[in-house]
């Protein structure tokens, strides 16, 4: 049996009186692509942000590679975050740096790569996302799809074991969704472990190993995409699917 790379035990998170995550126990195995879907406000993004401790869980634990993140000191958490790349809905590229500098920053400041090595790495990653000709552009001159691909390259630069995607295509114009999804699909093909929060059902069907349906602070269903989409178990999931598959 493979050892899970991420293990979540009884995770709960509340903001004030608002209980966003109630009791979540799940695990992610190496190489798995998990797609988290569910209605808005169901806690999907909060869940994802708890995995790399951008949000501190109220209770429960998050184990990464066998270590309980919630008990570690800040320095150790910083180190483990390197292993979990994250891609955001709003790209969050650094506007004051070129594309190349965006990618080079963390490898140089955190991993202390020298400039030449970081530049080489950045060009390789940009080639991988088909954007090497934009290396010297500033983020403001990129389209949404290009910006998100740069963001993916930036996260990959730390050579993570897991990639977390928080609605990576939700802020994009429809015609740009494809280019981002194809980059993500390629990553999945290369065997990257991924946890993706998305509304792209097509992506979930074709790429996911498991679909987690999340609503009301719980993971309501955990199933293969085939099973989930053809034969949802809970009323909550049926209701959700009937609305989006119209």
């Amino acid at each position, binding site marked *: 049996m493979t050892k899970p790379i991420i293990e979540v035990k009884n995770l709960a998170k509340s903001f004030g009186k608002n209980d966003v995550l109630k009791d979540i126990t799940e695990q992610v195995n190496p190489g798995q692509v998990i797609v988290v879907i569910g209605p808005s406000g169901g806690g999907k993004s909060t869940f994802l942000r708890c995995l*790399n401790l*951008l949000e501190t869980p109220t209770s429960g634990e998050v184990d990464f590679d066998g270590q309980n993140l919630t008990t570690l000191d*800040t*320095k150790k958490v*910083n*180190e*483990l*975050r*390197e*292993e*979990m*790349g*994250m891609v*955001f809905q*709003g790209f*969050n*590229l*650094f*506007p*004051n740096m070129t594309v190349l500098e965006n990618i080079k*920053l*963390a490898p140089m*400041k*955190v991993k202390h790569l020298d400039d030449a090595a970081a530049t080489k790495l950045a060009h390789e990653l940009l080639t991988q996302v088909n954007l090497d000709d934009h290396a010297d552009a*500033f*983020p*403001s001159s990129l389209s949404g799809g290009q910006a998100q691909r740069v*963001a993916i390259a*930036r*996260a990959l*630069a*730390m050579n993570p074991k897991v990639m*977390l995607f928080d609605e990576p295509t939700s802020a994009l114009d429809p015609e740009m969704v494809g280019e981002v999804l194809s980059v993500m699909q390629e990553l999945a093909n290369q065997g990257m472990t991924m946890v993706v929060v998305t509304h792209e059902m097509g992506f979930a069907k074709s790429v996911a190993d498991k679909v987690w349906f999340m609503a009301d602070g719980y993971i309501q269903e955990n199933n293969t995409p085939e099973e989930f989409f053809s034969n949802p178990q809970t009323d909550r999931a049926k209701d959700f699917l009937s609305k989006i598959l119209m």
Partner: protein
Amino acid sequence: MKKRVILFFALLLSLVTGMTAVTSTTAHAATDNSLTKVEKKGTLVMGTSPDYPPYEFQATVHGKSQVVGMDVAVGKKIAKDLGVKLVVKSMSFDSLLVALQTGKVDMVISGMNPTPARKKSVDFSHTYYQGGYSIVINKNDKGIYKDKDSFVGKTIGAQTGSTMYNESKKQTSGTTVKGMTSVSDLILALQSHKIQGVAMEKPSAQAYVANNKELAAIPSNFDLSASDTSASVAFAKGSTALVTKANKSVDQIKKQNLVNKTYLPEAGKYLKTNTVNTSMWHYWKAFLTGIKYTLIITVCSVFFGFILGVILALARMGGGGVLRTGLRWLATAYVEFIRGTPMMVQVMFVYFGLGLIVNLPALTSGIIAISLNSGAYVAEYIRGGINSVDSGQTEAARSLGMSGGATMRYVVLPQALKNIWPSLGNEFITLIKDSSIVSIIGVSELIFQSNIVRSDTYRGVAPIAVIMVLYFILTFTASRILNYFERRMQHD
């Protein structure tokens, strides 16, 4: 909220009591080591306000601007008799006694009258000169004004803090008395008819009249006790040993009539050489010195102010944990306090107040005070700038494994800096202008230098016009440079 206010006042109170405690301990130092102290360091520091010819004034001697006059001669004599070197320190007349009490200077010779009020706070030597008062008027008005009583419904000017000022107020009725810090300002006010007469000591009046053909002197006819027209050397309270020594020199000066026989004629010579060339070009070196110090003060203060501002801003944004909360409160109290008190008071507090603990030169004090002041303002800009950076930027950086510090330094601050650059630029330009405040503690920046040129040349307006243009050149150049960098930072 209420708790917060109470805490703030408690902090303030402890600060004030702390300072008072320091002040009183120094004042009560009973042992008189005044003489040994001076002998030990080998210098006798004399404080004076060099805008009062022929007592003391700036003159260009061998191409260098220095303080000369009969008071300086008196100081030299005292120092020589003590076997030490005389150091002359210039500052405004108002600041002289404070400087004496706080140990910035060992003695004050500045045509100062030993009035009973002053005797309460300082010790005086015997008088070295017995003068009288005149009133300087415009020559055209010579027929109108006879003496102090002719100014009913008019305005007489006198140096603020001087005996003439107090006596003019007491001994005239129906006359407005206007106080100004420097005599050159008073003469300028007279010539521009803002005031009708200037009360000053007779030798000074004669000097001004001799150098300016449009002025005339009339007798004042003030009813004066001897102490009001005499000049003495002031020493810190309780320095009896030093006073006794100085009295020997003073007695000698009086006995040999040195003031009238030697000192005054010598001072007169400087006055003549001084007024040979009153063109502003002749004084370019003085203005250059002014620019140099103005820039030194501004650049240093901006630099240290910025560092302090970053620290304060970060402290103010901290939270969680007793230490960080405490730091936040402290930083908030500091910012509020600095923004709520005038910079001029802060400058004097640092120079004179901190001077009780450590003896800081005027320039250092000025830079410290302005940096402390600027830091409080910059902190607020930076806090706003940091808040203006989208939280997604921090999250992106943290998700890449960057520490909080690295995120702040490489991601947030550069963007915050760009956002607040215009405000920081304004602060820099404001500092160029506000640095003029340190002229009150005698730092030779532009304003101070212009005052020297004014008393040097007896020209009121020209030096002001010159520094106005110079200030504009400085601020305009600075704003061009800042704009250049602002453009370079625009990427989005």
